[in-house]
């Protein structure tokens, strides 16, 4: 019953989305308001319909309905409730349905919040969001249906169908439960509970700025309306995408057991590409808002971001490249590729059409190379160069070489570590300089004055590091540049607070609150910059100064690394956890000098029922702000575990990456949060009229 309900709700949502597209476009062309309203209602209705569909799948997962093939594939009777819930996105079919559900939620929210203020754009916004939704729902309904059930035919063949085929019988529930495959071991981690939904949220929420941009092009309303309407959507999308990437890094660090958080895996890169273009867009869009410039460029960036989102989805799920994410491979590659190609070509075509008509001409031109808009353009260029370099390494070189050179070039970590660092460094330089430049005209002298204090502070830090024994020039330059970027953010905020404290007599706390409250965008932005600088320090430390060693130890023996001593104490093999996995755990003691620090338990988990990759290596880690001591159990003597092999990493400053990420999230929330009294996307004219009425009544 649950399968039928879930499938019919998804089918209905698909039909409703198609209706919304047709009604919106016909209504817009005929100026038939009632049709546009009907389209809006249909678009909003997809959300509750998909909530029913997703709810049915969740209930089926929780109540262990193994006749549903998807549930049989991603769970088993030993799967804890926690992972039953997260198994919704544990494989292809469920994750696509979940993706559609999130997209419908965002589309409904955007339509409700912006309906009156952006009425002219709405028919096209409905059309674009619903085209995307209908495509993904089409995949669910016709290709990757999570509601298909298993049936046994008279010929003993097992077929998959939502509805019972003629002469088909349901397999025995006991047999199904016994043979159920369980969730992929790599996905049984807290990071995987949040990482995919965050990434999906980031991906789907970028549909909203894209749809508004396309609506602006289609409707001819090429003012800054679409930008104002979507600024927060873009920031929210960026926040979710950032969170998705950070949590993915944390998951890799904890579960994949390579001692790092970013392996330059093509699928990781596929998620990073929209983030790069999206970040460029967030900066560039300010130029259009403030100066009326870069209209065509902003359109290209928003299309580029959405195009990268769809391409990333295609790359992850088509098997285009080898990756640790290959569990998501399936046959939906071709439809995704065609959808990506059509969306990109149509969108670029629309831009070129408007551009040729002269409707995307800039209102001002660049006056000064050191002006904020010029520096933002430089920042955009660096982001695009990073995009090109990473795209080339992940997809361009392998695909082009296979197509034209009869060989397949695969570029690994070395390529990315050669090409990207200068570009990242350039971004940090711009991050230090651009915030202190002015719109329109800016002089080098003025900027130099504003940079003195942050520069001196950063110089002191570098001097301290050099005196402390750091002799690597690359590291000193890196720390210097990243520190200046962070110091600029701190110093500019400090100056604002001091000005309020001295000028208005506010207490320090009041001054901070008022400063952030009055210009959330600016100071939220500084906080984000500070977060990025802290992340940069963590990346530099953990990349340039990582130490590692591997040694086989007998019980009681120890190894030394970076001033730490690690002793092998005991081994507990064959521990069976509640979810059925078998854990082989080594216990080690970590000391620094004579001081006891921690007892760590690195382990290997083995999942007897799982198909394919059926084990995971879970590190034992001792974390401080200074570094992580990260211990992996590589192997052990099979007979009595009297000896075991350990791989130990010292990852300096790695925790700054997670702390910096937290600062970044706080900064983005500050920037997104509306000002007091500012409506969230509703009709400002109506609100002011209502206010006027209220004032009149009071008078």
């Amino acid at each position: 019953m649950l399968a039928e309900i879930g499938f019919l709700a998804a089918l209905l949502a698909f039909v409703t989305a198609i209706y919304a597209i047709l009604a919106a476009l016909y209504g817009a062309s005929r100026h038939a308001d009632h049709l546009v309203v009907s389209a809006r209602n249909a678009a909003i209705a997809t959300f509750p319909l998909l909530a029913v569909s997703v709810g049915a799948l969740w209930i089926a997962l929780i109540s262990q309905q193994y006749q549903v093939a998807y549930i049989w594939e991603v769970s088993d009777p030993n799967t804890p409730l926690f992972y039953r819930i997260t198994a919704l996105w544990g494989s292809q079919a469920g994750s696509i349905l979940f993706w559609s559900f999130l997209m419908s939620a965002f589309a409904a929210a955007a339509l409700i919040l912006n309906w009156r203020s952006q009425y002219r754009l709405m028919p096209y916004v409905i059309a674009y969001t619903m085209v995307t939704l209908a495509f993904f729902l089409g995949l669910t309904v016709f290709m990757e249906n999570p509601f298909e059930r298993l049936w046994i035919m008279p010929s003993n063949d097992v077929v998959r169908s939502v509805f019972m085929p003629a002469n088909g019988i349901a397999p025995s529930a006991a047999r199904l439960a016994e043979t159920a495959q369980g969730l992929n071991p790599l996905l049984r981690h807290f990071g995987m509970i949040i990482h995919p939904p965050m990434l999906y949220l980031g991906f789907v929420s970028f549909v909203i700025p894209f749809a508004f941009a396309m609506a602006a092009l289609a409707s001819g309303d090429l003012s800054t309306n679409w930008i104002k309407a979507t600024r927060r959507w873009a920031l929210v999308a960026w926040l979710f995408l950032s969170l998705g990437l950070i949590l993915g890094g944390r998951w890799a660090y904890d579960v994949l057991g390579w001692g790092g958080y970013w392996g330059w895996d093509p699928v990781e890169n596929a998620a990073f590409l929209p983030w790069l273009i999206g970040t460029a867009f967030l900066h560039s869009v300010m130029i259009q808002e403030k100066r009326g410039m870069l209209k065509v460029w902003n359109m290209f960036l928003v299309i580029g971001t959405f195009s990268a989102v769809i391409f990333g989805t295609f790359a992850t799920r088509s098997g285009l490249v080898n990756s640790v994410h290959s569990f998501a491979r399936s046959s939906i590659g071709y439809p995704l590729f065609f959808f990506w190609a059509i969306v990109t070509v149509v969108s670029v075509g629309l831009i070129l059409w408007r551009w040729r008509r002269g409707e995307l001409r800039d209102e001002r031109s660049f006056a000064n190379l050191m002006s904020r808009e010029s520096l933002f353009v430089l920042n955009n260029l660096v982001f695009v160069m990073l995009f090109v370099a990473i795209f080339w390494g992940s997809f361009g070189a392998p695909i082009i070489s296979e197509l034209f050179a009869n060989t397949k070039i695969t570029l690994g970590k070395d390529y990315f570590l050669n090409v990207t660092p200068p570009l990242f460094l350039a971004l940090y330089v711009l991050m230090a300089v651009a915030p202190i430049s002015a719109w329109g005209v800016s002089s080098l002298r003025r900027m130099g004055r504003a940079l003195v204090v942050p520069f001196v502070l950063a110089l002191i830090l570098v001097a301290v590091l050099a005196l402390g024994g750091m002799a690597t020039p690359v590291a000193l330059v890196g720390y210097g540049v990243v520190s200046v970027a962070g110091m600029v953010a701190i110093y500019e905020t400090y100056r604002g607070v001091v000005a309020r404290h001295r000028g208005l007599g506010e207490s320090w706390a009041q001054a901070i609150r008022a400063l952030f409250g009055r210009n959330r965008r600016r100071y939220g932005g500084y906080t984000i910059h500070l977060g990025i600088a802290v992340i940069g320090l963590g990346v530099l430390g953990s990349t340039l100064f990582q130490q590692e060693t591997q040694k086989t130890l007998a019980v009681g023996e120890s190894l030394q690394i970076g001033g730490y001593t690690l002793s092998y104490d005991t081994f507990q093999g064959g521990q069976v956890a509640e979810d059925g996995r078998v854990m082989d755990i080594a216990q080690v003691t970590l000391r620094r000098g004579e001081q006891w620090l921690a007892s760590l338990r690195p382990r290997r988990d083995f999942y007897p029922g799982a198909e394919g990759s059926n084990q995971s290596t879970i590190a034992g880690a001792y974390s401080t702000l200074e570094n992580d001591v990260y211990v992996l159990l590589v192997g052990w003597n099979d007979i009595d575990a009297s000896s075991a092999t350990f791989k130990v990493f010292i990852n300096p400053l790695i925790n700054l990456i997670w702390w910096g990420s937290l600062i970044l999230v706080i900064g983005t929330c500050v920037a997104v949060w509306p000002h007091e009294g500012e409506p969230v996307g509703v009709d400002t004219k109506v609100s002011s009229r209502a206010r006027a009425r209220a004032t009149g009544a009071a008078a």
Partner: protein
Amino acid sequence: MISNKVRTWPVIAGCLMAAMMVLVQPAFAQGPVTDDDVNRVARQLYCPVCENIPLDVCGTQACAQWRDEIRLQLQAGKSEQAVIADFVARYGDRVVGTPQDPTLRGLSLVTPWLLSAVALSVALGIFVRWRTAQARSIQTGIPVPAASTSARSSELTPRRLEEYRARLEQDLARRR
């Protein structure tokens, strides 16, 4: 007779061991091969059955076997580069994550910079054009034309204007 044979065996074994020591001296001269030595090489290789995980941290059986093979080759006195070259010869460029052919290698590394240089040139060209247009407008006093923010009213036909007015009136009437 038997006792003589027994006495000669240790002599022969000693000679053989001495000969082996001379033959494998380069390997012994480097000291025993540690896990760290193996990992230093393994870090530069990727296993074809694994997916983008370096060989030194991959937990699969296949990768463990490859690491054993690296150890054997190092013990046999091969240099790190020779071991890597051997793996490339047997399994292709994919195992190192970088093309070994100098042309392909050069192309792979240079292409993103070339593309970026093109992007920079285009941006610079646009900037120069803007500056020139601005300078010209200052000289001639004719402002640089700005875009209309929506469809220009001159492009609207009388029929469409009428339609628009009618809709506006309807909206206003509804609000009243």
